[in-house]
């Protein structure tokens, strides 16, 4: 059986159990770590996250993917300690995006003119986080990244968004680790951009597809037909920009009825703890305790629920994608 890169090292994909592929453990809006009025108390953060992960496990959860990438709060040593303490498998991600989240090193480098980074440099940066290990900045590398996560600006693709998607796809194709794209203003074109870099569609997960504009545009079904994974990733959210849970269930039922159950993943985009910006304070366990019963009430078979929550994520996260 293929293995998945977790923060504690490779784990057989069959051991993950119920897996949420788009969550965030500690979220830090870049720069917030330097704010005069923000104190990040590591002991408090640990306790808070440990409680949430333990609840998730008690509800039947097995693995959490921190899909926030390499620059928005990722703290590998904290995540390793949490994985050890709670028994929840934690997969951390490399990648960055969208453009507005990047540091000046990538956008206005000390060259004349200050040309932003091209795709090949992002491919190298992300690829090394898989091959050599994820960075603790200026210090050391730890375990291999299990996902390459990027995002496109919701209002429309910025030049460096394109380089990020292409770089992530190249790194994914080279290393066998899946790519996650939080979609912008044209999910189909964004997936095609990744595919153009030699990344097989089935190794790409497209997220934010339960955003209203995404659902209204019919992107979820189109993405599924193209062979990529549709991530319905705002379960439990009350954010008006996203479908509510009833609408979300209708979308999932439609996709299943169209034969796409193997292409669906569910997640909640929760932030365990958030600094610098209000978090999405949904418990990781809520998907299992509230949403799954709603799916069953809507007539979704247990086997389909299991597939979306267990075997689909295991297949996606398997390095090289051999598992199923």
């Amino acid at each position: 059986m293929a293995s998945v890169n977790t923060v504690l090292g490779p784990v057989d994909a069959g051991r993950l159990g119920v897996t949420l592929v788009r969550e965030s453990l500690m979220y830090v809006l870049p720069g917030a770590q330097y704010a005069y009025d923000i104190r990040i108390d590591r002991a408090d953060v640990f306790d808070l996250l440990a409680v949430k992960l333990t609840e998730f496990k008690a509800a039947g959860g097995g693995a959490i993917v921190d899909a926030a990438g390499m620059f928005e709060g990722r703290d590998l040593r904290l995540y390793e300690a949490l994985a050890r303490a709670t028994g929840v498998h934690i997969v951390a991600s490399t990648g960055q995006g969208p453009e507005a989240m990047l540091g000046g090193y990538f956008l206005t480098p000390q060259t004349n003119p200050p040309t932003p980074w091209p795709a090949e440099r992002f491919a190298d940066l992300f690829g090394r986080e898989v091959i050599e290990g994820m960075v603790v900045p200026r210090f050391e590398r730890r375990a291999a990244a299990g996902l390459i996560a990027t995002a496109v600006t919701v209002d429309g693709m910025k030049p460096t968004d394109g380089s990020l998607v292409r770089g992530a796809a190249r790194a994914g194709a080279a290393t066998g680790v899946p790519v996650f794209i939080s979609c912008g203003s044209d999910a189909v074109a964004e997936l095609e951009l990744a595919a153009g870099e030699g990344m097989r569609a089935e190794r790409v997960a497209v997220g934010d597809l339960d955003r209203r504009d995404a659902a209204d545009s019919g992107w979820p079904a189109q993405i599924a037909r193209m062979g990529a994974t549709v991530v319905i990733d705002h379960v439990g959210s009350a954010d008006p920009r996203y479908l509510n849970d009833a609408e979300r269930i209708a979308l999932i039922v439609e996709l299943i009825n169209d034969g796409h159950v193997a292409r669906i993943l569910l997640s909640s985009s929760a932030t365990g703890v958030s600094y610098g910006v209000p978090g999405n304070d949904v418990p990781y366990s809520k998907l299992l305790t509230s949403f799954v019963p709603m799916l069953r009430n809507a007539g979704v078979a247990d086997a389909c629920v299991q597939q979306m929550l267990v075997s689909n994520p295991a297949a996606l996260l398997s390095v090289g994608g051999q598992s199923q």
Partner: protein
Amino acid sequence: MTRVNTVLGTISAAELGFVAIHEHIGYGMPGCELDSKWWKSPEQRYEETVPKLRKFHEYAKPYGAATFVDATGICNGRDVDYYKSLSAKTGVHIVASTGFVGGDTALPFFERASVDYLARQFIHEVSVGIGDSGAKAGIIKVGVSRGFRMKELDKRIYRAAARASKVTGAPIFTHLAVDCEPALTIFDEEGLPVKRVLFGHADDGVSQGKVNEKAILGKGGRIGFDTFGYDLELPDPPFWGRHRSERLKHFLGFLNHGLVGQVLASADANCSPLGWPGVKGHTVNYLFERLIPDLRDAGIDEATIEQIFVRNAAEFLTLQPISS
């Protein structure tokens, strides 16, 4: 009574001695910490840095002491605890910055912040301290983003700096003296005397023809000849380099026209750069090894040299709150 904030505490301006007004222990663009190509071990960092500071301390002995103003902004690898250890072990006074080198070095948290919040950030770092280091910033850094035009975020930072300067009395350092008109307008509107502002890098190669020296001088502002040593005669000069004789002639023009009170000089060297290769062989000690001999050769007397590096600097760095 004069007060200057150094990383080891507040001291009298009379203790500063010889001041290198614009230097860097180590500067890197935000995000460069993710790229392991630039990483150095702590052993290497100290090895590259300590001898330069010790030499600077030795050179400055005739002036009583050596002061190194570190103009590294909040998101550029500023590391105040490290500066404290360097200062304690080498005897060099180190003055740290609050503020940003330019809008394009302010990470998303600060990019989204209001003028009021940014002002509170700067005031806190000057009057209470930076993070939990206990060290207070002694200057406020602002700057023009790449492209030689002030962007909206640059202007927001200048306005916040003006307010913070009035409250705390800390002087303002600009990165680049180009496009000074909007800056002068902001300082005017905020009621900050422009003598509290050093318009930096007015001497670099790429800014020539773009600096309205007359406008800055007319308002009482100070002109920074603070990239001494980035000479085009170097084997691999940076893009902002300039012919050594041309820069010297430019500077002598000011000294010989009664403007010595409005200039400050420095080398803008990195002891150990963080996210770029740096310029080999260029150190703060250029001031003693090349510049001062060049000035003497040009007939500049010791009193003038002392005025630039001791009295002007002390006057400028002295905290001067303005009650409104």
